[in-house]
């Protein structure tokens, strides 16, 4: 029976390949939507893992997480220095690391922070050492710079028409281990240097800079004018030792990563800093809300994928019914030579199911390949790893699609089964 089916497949190579690809593409579409969504979810959850509690100025929770965890460039209101100083001194806080973004170099985000965050992200460095002077920079594992490379920070990004700070050039002194997060693409520098470059260093809290927006698209515009005038361009001393005594020297920051000592402390701190001018969030919590939105988008995409599958199933049904029609005489002859109705049913069913099954397998492979390629592109662009992997649920999906194909193949098989051999031979 298998030999007979294979002979038929060989004879109709073109049609068989067409059906195979049709099934494969329909399945690949659904598979890649599923895999992609899962990879994004896992990847972002992994990225947020290191960030227990993020505190910033009152504003959008989502933006605070996107900017601090995912280093997405966007204007963020600054939190006043006093709040940061309070956090740093709080006994319930293991450490509070400032995160000052807005500058970039060669497309990599430049983040002003403290040694505590470097140690937190990469307890052991891949090479070199952490920063000791204001001109030191530690790079993420995916940053394509070598030790000692000179970094001239650019305000904003090149695409936004940012200008280069002339007040300070950093030198790469260390490289972190891979974290699988967007921070792999970051250049970490001492926050003091960032403050000083932006004219905020060694100034007391409560200065009117509080309302100013770092890296603002529009706001940066008029501020920029001042920078370009040259006289307002601030400078910093690259050789000055870093000073992390926040109580003495601190300025406004867009975000602070807080590592609470206990879970209870985490909840208390989040509660305390959620009022008035500050906003405290658990990135995991914000992500869960984002996932819900993502889930809705996934449902929509899945609906499109399933719709495609139904269309293709309908097309396949048409093709297979024609397939049986074309083989009326052949099927009649099989019956005439003594093949039973059951054998004819099995031949037609097995024939179509085999092709569909091969298409489903191919579709899963294709879907994986596409997801892997997309994941690779996302990783290169955003630095965070997209773990593309099949899960138990996919097995259920594979089984469901296979079962659907099996049921679909019954229709033409039934047609063949019901054909009278005498009538079929006449045609």
């Amino acid at each position, binding site marked *: 029976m298998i030999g007979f089916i294979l002979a038929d497949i060989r004879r109709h190579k073109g049609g068989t390949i067409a059906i195979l690809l049709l099934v494969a593409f329909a399945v690949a579409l659904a598979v890649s939507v599923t895999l992609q969504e899962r990879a994004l979810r896992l990847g972002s959850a992994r990225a947020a893992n290191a960030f227990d509690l993020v505190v910033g100025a009152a504003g959008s929770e989502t933006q605070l997480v996107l900017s601090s965890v995912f280093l997405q460039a966007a204007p963020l209101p600054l939190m006043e220095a006093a709040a940061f100083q309070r956090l740093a001194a709080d006994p319930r806080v293991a450490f509070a690391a400032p995160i000052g973004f807005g500058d970039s170099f060669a497309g990599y985000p430049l983040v002003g922070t403290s040694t505590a965050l470097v140690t937190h992200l990469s307890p052991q460095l891949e090479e070199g050492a952490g920063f000791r002077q204001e001109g030191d920079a530690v790079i993420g594992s995916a940053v394509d710079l070598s030790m000692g490379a000179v970094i001239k920070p650019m305000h904003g990004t090149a695409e936004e028409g940012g200008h280069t700070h002339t007040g300070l050039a950093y030198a790469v002194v260390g490289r972190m281990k891979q974290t699988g997060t967007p921070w792999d693409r970051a250049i970490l520098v001492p926050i003091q240097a960032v403050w000083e470059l932006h004219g905020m260093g060694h100034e007391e809290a409560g200065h009117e800079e509080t309302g100013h927006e770092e890296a603002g698209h529009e706001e940066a515009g008029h501020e920029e004018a001042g920078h370009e005038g040259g006289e307002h361009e601030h400078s910093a001393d690259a050789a000055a030792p870093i000073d992390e005594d926040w109580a003495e020297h601190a300025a406004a920051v867009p975000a602070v990563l807080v590592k609470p000592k206990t879970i209870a402390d985490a909840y208390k701190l989040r509660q305390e800093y959620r009022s008035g001018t500050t906003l405290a969030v658990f990135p995991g919590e914000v992500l869960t809300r984002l996932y819900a939105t993502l889930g809705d988008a996934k449902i929509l995409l899945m609906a499109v994928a399933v719709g495609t599958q139904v269309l293709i199933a309908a097309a396949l049904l048409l093709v297979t019914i024609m397939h049986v029609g074309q083989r009326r*005489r052949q099927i009649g002859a099989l019956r005439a030579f003594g093949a*039973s109705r059951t*054998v004819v049913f099995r031949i037609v069913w097995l024939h179509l199911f085999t092709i569909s099954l091969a298409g489903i397998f191919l579709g899963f492979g294709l879907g994986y390949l596409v997801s892997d390629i997309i994941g690779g592109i996302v990783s290169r662009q955003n630095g965070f790893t997209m773990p593309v992997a099949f899960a138990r649920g996919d097995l259920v999906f594979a089984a469901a699609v296979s079962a659907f194909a099996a049921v679909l193949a019954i229709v033409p098989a039934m047609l063949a089964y019901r054909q009278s051999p005498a009538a079929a031979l006449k045609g």
Partner: protein
Amino acid sequence: MLSLTLKDIAVSYAGLASPVLSVPALQVAAGESVAVTGASGSGKSTFVNVVSGLEHVGEGVIDWGGTDLVRLAEHRRDRWRAEHVGLVMQDFHLFPGLSALDNVLLPARLASAASSAVKRRGRDLLAGTGLERPGQPVETMSRGEMQRVAIARALVREPGIVIADEPTASLDEESGHIIADLLIGLAGAAGATLIVVSHDPALISRLPRRITLERGQISRDSKAAAI
């Protein structure tokens, strides 16, 4: 080797006034060779379908050596036909993509009856028809060669009955002659009852008994006439 008894057989189609086939009584002895002739539309094809069990008949008797096809359900008729009838058709109905030998063995394989004895017999039969390459794909063969494969296929399971429907109609005179030789010779050697439906005079003349159909009725039977 089986004998045939037909009794009160009438096949009608809706919309047709007279039955396409009406046989009150007919006897074919076991091992006998019979030619059935008649103009087109005389009911020859229906006759083949009826005696081979391809067409369902509700009343009467179609008795082959004690088995009444009228009383068999469709799947039982299929199985009976597979075991007892070797069919040879005008259009061969070979399956392209398969070799000559695979075609010969296909019905046996589909009935899970392709024993090594059947396989050996398939090779012998193919050799007996003068085909030297059992592995040759059938689509590369001439029409005469294809009909030889079809004859080997009809005989491979040693059926008690061989039914041929216009076996020489689509062949040239020389091939038709070879096919007639093979059909009569091999069926005779196997001792099978042979029923040949044909309007080829060369083939008809070689069969001892001739039945002529006219508008669904037997108008002439050489055996009855001889009696």
